[in-house]
């Protein structure tokens, strides 16, 4: 039952990406291209996606976290790290460069796989390689934070 629920949750997430247009890298890049504001070609959609998603999650989490425990689990696994270390800057900095190059972040890239394009397949193969490499390095680094990752 829990497995089926997680499949449906993934499906809802993916449908959100498709409906919002975020599974289309051109739409993402046209948002990130702030220089296009003055030419009128700017696509502000991503900001609306983010605002709506954060608004729903902000309210929803408040209700859900009043429960003693999740429906299919013993406890809530919330990130506990609060320190601002080098990794919280370096990781997102590297991620942003890749995001700006292709217009894909992990969710939309995986969703694009279902569209069957070769380009998405290539991107996802490289992305998974990068992910596994980062986790491998993180586990071996002395100040490992991977166990508290989100």
């Amino acid at each position: 039952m829990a497995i089926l629920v997680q499949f449906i949750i993934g499906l809802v997430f993916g449908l959100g990406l498709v409906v919002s247009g975020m599974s289309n890298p051109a739409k993402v890049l046209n948002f990130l291209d702030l220089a296009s504001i003055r030419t009128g070609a700017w696509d502000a959609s991503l900001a609306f996606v983010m605002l709506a998603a954060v608004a729903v999650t902000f309210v929803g989490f408040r209700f859900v976290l009043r429960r003693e425990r999740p429906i299919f689990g013993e406890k809530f696994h919330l990130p506990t790290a609060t320190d601002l270390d080098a990794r919280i800057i370096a990781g997102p900095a590297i991620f942003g460069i890749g995001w700006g190059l292709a217009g894909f972040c992990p969710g939309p890239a995986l969703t694009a796989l279902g569209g069957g394009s070769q380009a998405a397949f290539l991107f996802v193969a490289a992305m998974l390689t990068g992910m596994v490499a980062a986790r491998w390095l993180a586990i071996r680094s002395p100040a490992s934070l991977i166990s508290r990752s989100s």
Partner: protein
Amino acid sequence: MSATEFTPIAAVVGGALIGAAAVMLMAAKGRIAGVSGIAVRLFPPYGDGELAGRIAFIAGLILAPIIATFIAGGAPEQTIEASGIVLLAAGLLVGFGSVWGNGCTSGHGVCGLSRLSIRSLVAVATFMTTAIATVFISRHLM
């Protein structure tokens, strides 16, 4: 570059669905809906017995456009402009950076900001800055 239209209503509806999925995962499993964290744990080392659930979530993500095509009667629009070598480099950077920084647009962006996490706020400000700079350089300076 190929022009896209500003679609605020579709953006809000889609964004709300993404938020609903994040809330449902917290309610069901007590976990943050961070796609990079879920995807990297499809690979070893394993340890928490949650592999099947993660596979199910990712399968749902991948099947979403197929279901959407079936419902809407047409494939969702998708324009990928980057060449093969750029896609490879971008994929490596996105994969490495998201796991190194413990989250991507979903984990830090949607869930982290909703939890008012300072770490996530720093992460989001950082990746927005480098992504915007990258697009500016690649589109306007090269």
